[in-house]
């Protein structure tokens, strides 16, 4: 909106500029600049404590930042309040711990936000919810409660719940880290499908297979900084920094 360039291409879907964040003495995000284009899939990698999760959560301001700006589709994130809530509705988020609403059925989990935030009529929202649950392969469980589902199933419902808001961009904060190994695949499959359909995605993960296959770009973080920002192919075959080589050496030898 404030962009004056005439005939410019649309703004990036996500733009972070000079983002800083401290947890007490710990400098968790140092001067982060990151742009994610429309339809782009960016995978954020890094050792634990590198700030990658905080970066993901800063995009929709679930994590307040100390300095810098974050823009979604050209609009800077406002202060906490109604406008921020409105903007967050356009940003889907999937958490490590699923965070499905424990007191609601699977169907109601997916229906709640479209009806209460967007004012979609209930019948229409339910119809769309069923279609989404079908897409992630959970249609038969619609009347169950979250606690009755496996972790992998819960995470797929969480993805459907986020998609029900028809978000412009999806954030994934370590979506498979809390899952039993045999359930990782089903969640990754759903995410790969989304990537193929052109969804803009920022994915914090340890799934190197997903990074190789689905990502357009890999962002490697260490100590709160973006150390590398490159294609998956060049990151995995020719890491430019010592820290990236060290990281890859540790995870790929296992």
């Amino acid at each position, binding site marked *: 909106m404030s962009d004056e360039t005439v005939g410019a291409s649309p703004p990036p879907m996500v733009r972070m500029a000079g983002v800083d964040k401290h947890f007490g003495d710990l400098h968790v995000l140092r001067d982060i600049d990151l742009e994610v284009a429309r339809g782009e899939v960016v995978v954020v990698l890094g050792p634990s404590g590198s700030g990658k999760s905080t970066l993901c959560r800063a995009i929709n301001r679930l994590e307040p930042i100390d300095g810098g700006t974050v823009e979604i589709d050209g609009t800077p994130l406002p202060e906490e309040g109604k406008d921020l809530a409105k903007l967050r509705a356009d940003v889907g988020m999937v958490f490590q711990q699923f*965070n499905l*609403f424990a007191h609601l059925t699977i169907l109601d989990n997916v229906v709640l936000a479209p009806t209460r935030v967007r004012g979609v009529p209930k019948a229409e929202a339910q119809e769309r919810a069923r279609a989404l649950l079908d897409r992630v392969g959970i249609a038969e469980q619609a009347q169950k409660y979250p*606690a009755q589902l496996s972790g992998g199933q819960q995470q797929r419902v969480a993805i459907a719940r986020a998609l029900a808001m028809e978000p412009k961009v999806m954030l994934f904060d370590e979506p498979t880290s809390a899952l039993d190994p045999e359930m990782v695949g089903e969640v990754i499959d759903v995410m790969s499908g989304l990537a193929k359909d052109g969804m803009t995605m920022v994915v914090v993960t340890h799934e190197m297979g997903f990074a190789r296959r689905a990502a357009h770009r890999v962002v490697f973080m260490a100590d709160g900084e973006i150390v590398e920002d490159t294609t998956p192919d060049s990151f995995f075959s020719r890491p430019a920094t010592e820290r990236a080589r060290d990281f890859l050496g540790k995870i790929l030898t296992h």
Partner: protein
Amino acid sequence: MDVLFGNLGEFLTRFGGTIALFVCSAIASLILGVVLAAMRVSPVPAMRATGTVYVTLLRNTPLTLVLFFFALGFTKLFFYLPFFLLAVIGLSLYTAAFVCETVRGGISTVSEGQAEAARALGFGFTQTLTLVVLPQAVRSVMPPLTSVQIALLKNTTVAAGFSVFEAGGFYRAVNERGGSTLVALLWVALGFIVLVIPLTVLQRRLEKRWSVSR
């Protein structure tokens, strides 16, 4: 038995009064208590402060004093209200402080992630609280919340102190008619035990129904 059957009409009307006092105060105290709990977790400092002051004041004051204030002071200071209504107000305000603290305890059992997920979907503070956090908080505190309401049921007898027609005054009525006060009190106690049973059953039912959805 004579004490009961000789005064059955009196006994039943008085317990009717107790039930009316209880039902009105229970509803009012639950609503007010939940609103107070919401205030105490609000991001607005003035709301939090108001909630804290309210709870400190009402929870630390003996119920008898609260009720006496409404029975004697209220009409003098403000305007006339029937004793029954004043008793309901006093009991509700007092009990709401306990409901508030119980529900607040429940809120702290709801994981942070639930509220985060709601905010990420675009819910504001009030919607996050009313649609996601409070329903789970209340489910998790059913047993203590029932206890607070049982205490309220029994506290209605304090209202007998200022001419509200309820069960606690039964023994006096019996005494005036020359019956045994002790026996009358035993019947009243039995009446209360019978009244509490449906509350306990309701609590168990709700707990069972909500066992999967927590």
